[in-house]
C-alpha cells in the first residue's frame, strides 16, 4: 500500500486522535472539517456509515484504508431533529451501479417515507448521485420534489432537469382496428411493386444485352467467368452428393414396389424419366437458390449499405452491366450444367441401388437407359435448368437492390429472395409440366 492515495491524508487523521473519545457525531464532524477538499464528503459518509453498521467508534485505519473505494451502497436513516420533526438522512452512493443490487428493497421503503409530507429529506450525506438515483427518488416523491429537502448544491441540477422534463410523452403508434386490412393492402402493393421491379430489371437486362451486342468489347467476361466458377464449379460437390443420395433413395423405394409386380426392368424407365425430367433440375435449382441466390442478394445488399453501388454509378460504370448481367448470364449457363451433373450422379446412385436390390447390372442399366427414356427428357431438363438459373439470378438481384441500409432489411431481403426464388422455381416447373405434357413421355 505504499502508493496508497490516502497516505497523504493519514497525517491529519493522526492529528485527530484526540477526538477519539468524543461522541460519534462530533468525531465525524471534526474529521469532515479536517479532510482535504476533495475527500470531505467521502470521509463524512464513511464515518456516518460506520457508526450505522457497527454502532461503535470506528478505528482510524478503518477510516483510511477503504476510503478510496467510495462506492458504499445507498442507505437510509431516520432521525429526529432538535425541534421534533422527522428527518430522513440519505447516505452512500446513489448511482446506478450501486442501486442495481438494492433497488428492489429501497423502492418500497422510499415510497412509504414519501407518503409523509412533513418528513424532512436530508440528502447532504449522499456521496454520489446520478440520474438513475435522482429518478428513483423523484418517482418515489410522486414526480416532484418534496417541500422539505436539503440538497448538496451539485445535485440541484439533476432534479431541475427532472422537474423541467417536458410532459410530452413519447410518440406511440396508435392501435387501429384496421391494422390487419392495412397490412394486407401493404403486402399486396409490395407484391405488385416487386413484379414491377422484376419487369423493369428484365427490360434493363434486355437493353444491356442489346448495348453489349453492338459493343462486344464491353462484355464483362471476367465477371461472368468468376460467377461461373462460384455458382458452378464450387457447387459441384454438394449437388453431386445430393443427387447421388436421392438416386439411391428413389431406387430403393421403386424397386420394392416393382418387384411386387415382377416389373423389375422398369426401374430404368422410372428412374430415368423422373430424374432427367423433374428431380435433377429441381434439386439443382433449389440448392443453387439457397447457395448462390442468397449470396448474390447479400452481396448486392452489402454493396448498397456500404455505398459501393453509388461509387460504381458515379464512376459511370453501370452496375446492371457489371454486377447483374454477369450473375444472370453465369447462372443461366452453370445451372443447366449442374443439372446434367446432378442427373448423372443421381442415375449412378440409382443404378448402384438397383444392382443391390434387383441385381440389374450397372452397365446393363446404362445401356438400356437411351431406349427406355426418350432424349427429349434430357433436353427438357436442361432447358428447365437454364430457365431456373435465369430466374434465380434475376430474383436474387432484384431483392439485393431493394435492401435498405440496415441489418434487419439485409436479413429479411436475403430470406425473401431465397423463399421467392424457390417458390417461383416450383411454379415454373408446374407450368413446364403442363405445357410439355406430350413431349418425351
Amino acid at each position: 500500500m505504499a502508493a496508497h492515495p490516502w497516505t497523504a491524508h493519514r497525517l491529519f487523521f493522526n492529528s485527530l486522535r484526540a477526538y477519539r473519545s468524543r461522541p460519534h457525531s462530533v468525531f465525524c464532524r471534526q474529521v469532515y472539517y479536517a479532510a482535504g477538499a476533495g475527500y470531505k464528503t467521502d470521509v463524512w459518509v464513511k464515518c456516518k456509515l460506520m457508526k450505522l453498521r457497527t454502532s461503535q467508534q470506528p478505528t482510524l485505519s478503518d477510516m483510511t484504508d477503504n476510503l478510496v473505494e467510495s462506492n458504499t451502497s445507498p442507505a437510509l436513516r431516520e432521525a429526529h431533529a432538535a425541534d421534533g420533526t422527522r428527518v430522513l438522512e440519505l447516505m452512500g452512493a446513489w448511482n446506478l451501479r450501486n442501486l442495481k443490487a438494492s433497488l428492489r428493497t429501497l423502492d418500497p421503503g422510499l415510497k412509504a417515507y414519501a407518503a409523509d409530507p412533513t418528513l424532512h429529506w436530508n440528502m447532504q450525506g449522499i456521496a454520489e448521485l446520478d440520474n438513475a438515483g435522482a429518478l428513483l427518488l423523484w418517482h418515489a416523491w410522486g414526480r416532484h420534489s418534496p417541500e422539505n429537502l436539503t440538497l448538496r448544491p451539485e445535485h440541484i441540477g439533476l432534479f431541475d432537469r427532472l422537474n423541467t422534463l417536458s410532459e410530452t410523452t413519447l410518440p406511440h403508434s396508435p392501435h387501429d382496428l384496421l391494422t390487419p386490412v392495412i397490412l394486407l393492402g401493404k403486402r399486396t402493393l409490395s407484391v405488385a411493386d416487386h413484379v414491377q421491379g422484376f419487369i423493369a430489371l428484365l427490360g434493363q437486362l434486355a437493353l444491356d444485352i442489346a448495348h453489349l451486342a453492338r459493343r462486344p468489347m464491353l462484355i464483362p467476361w471476367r465477371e461472368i467467368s468468376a460467377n461461373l466458377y462460384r455458382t458452378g464449379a464450387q457447387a459441384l460437390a454438394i449437388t453431386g452428393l445430393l443427387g447421388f443420395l436421392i438416386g439411391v433413395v428413389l431406387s430403393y423405394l421403386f424397386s420394392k414396389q416393382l418387384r411386387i409386380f415382377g416389373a423389375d426392368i422398369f426401374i430404368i424407365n422410372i428412374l430415368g424419366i423422373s430424374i432427367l425430367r423433374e428431380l435433377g433440375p429441381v434439386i439443382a435449382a433449389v440448392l443453387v437458390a439457397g447457395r448462390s441466390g442468397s449470396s448474390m442478394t447479400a452481396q448486392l445488399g452489402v454493396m448498397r449499405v456500404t455505398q459501393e453501388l453509388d461509387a460504381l454509378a458515379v464512376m459511370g460504370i453501370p452496375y446492371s452491366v457489371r454486377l447483374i448481367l454477369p450473375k444472370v448470364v453465369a447462372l443461366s449457363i452453370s445451372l443447366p450444367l449442374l443439372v446434367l451433373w446432378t442427373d448423372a450422379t443421381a442415375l449412378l446412385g440409382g443404378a448402384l441401388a438397383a444392382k443391390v436390390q434387383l441385381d440389374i447390372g450397372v452397365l446393363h442399366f446404362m445401356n438400356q437407359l437411351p431406349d427406355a427414356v426418350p432424349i427429349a427428357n434430357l433436353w427438357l431438363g436442361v432447358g428447365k435448368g437454364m430457365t431456373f438459373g435465369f430466374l434465380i439470378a434475376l430474383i436474387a438481384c432484384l431483392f439485393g437492390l431493394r435492401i435498405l441500409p440496415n441489418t434487419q432489411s439485409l436479413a429479411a431481403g436475403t430470406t425473401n429472395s431465397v423463399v421467392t426464388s424457390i417458390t417461383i422455381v416450383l411454379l415454373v416447373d408446374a407450368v413446364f409440366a403442363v405445357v410439355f405434357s406430350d413431349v418425351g413421355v
Partner: protein
Amino acid sequence: MTDKPCIIEIDGLWTQYGDTVVLEDVNLCVHHGEVLALVGGSGSGKTTLLRHILGLETPSRGTVKVFGVSLHEGDPRSRVDLRNRWGVLFQGGALYSALTVFDNIALPLRELHVLDEASIRTLVRLKLDMVQIELKHADKMPAELSGGMVKRVALARALALEPELLLLDEPTAGLDPDLSDSFVKLIGDLRKELSFTVVMVTHDIDTLFALSDRIAVLANRRLIATGPLKNVMQLDHPFIRKFFAGRMAVAGA
C-alpha cells in the same frame, strides 16, 4: 497528486500480428477525472490501443487494467460488471440499425434487468435531452438520421449507464466545423455535470485544445510523449512538429 489511482493502467503492452508489430512497449496511466487525448498519425496504432482498452484485442505481451480489473484474466463476472462502468462512442456511431433511436439508448438499461419500463423511458428521455435530440426523433431508425445526430444518439447511448469512464473514438470526425464545435461543447458540459473520465482518440486539433487535460502521442508504434498539451507541444519530435505546425501558424498569424 502523482499517486492518484489509475483508472486505466497499461503496462508493457505489445501487439503483434504475425511478424507485424503494431504496438511496442506501451505504458500508460489514465487518472480519475481527467481527459486524455490519444493522438498519432494514421496507422500509428491509436485505434488498436483503444481496442485494447476496450478489451476487444488480446495483448501479445503486457497487461491492460481498467478500474484495476484485468481485461483478459481473472473472474469473468467482474469483467462483465466492468463493462457497465464505461460508455463507448464508436467512430461510426455503431447504433443498432434494427432498433429505433429510443431502443438503442434503452437497450443497455433494459439489459440491467432492474429498472422498470417507466424509469427506463424517463431515463432515455433525460439522455436525449442531454444530447439535445428532440423527442420526435426517438422513433426514427438510425438510417434516417444525419451524421451529427447519429453521433449524438451514440453519445446518449454511451451515457445510458451513467459511466465513470467515457471512451470516444474520433468524436468529431465527419462533422462539419459548426456541429463539431457544438459536439465538443456538449461533451465538455456533460463532463462538468457528470464528472467522468474521458479517453478519446482524435485528429482534430480544435477538439484537443478544447477538451484535453493531457495528451498521449503515438508514433512509430510507441508512446513517445504523455503530458499536458503545452508541454507536449514543446517537444522536438518530427511527428509532433508536423502535427502542431498548422495550429502554431494559425496562432502566430
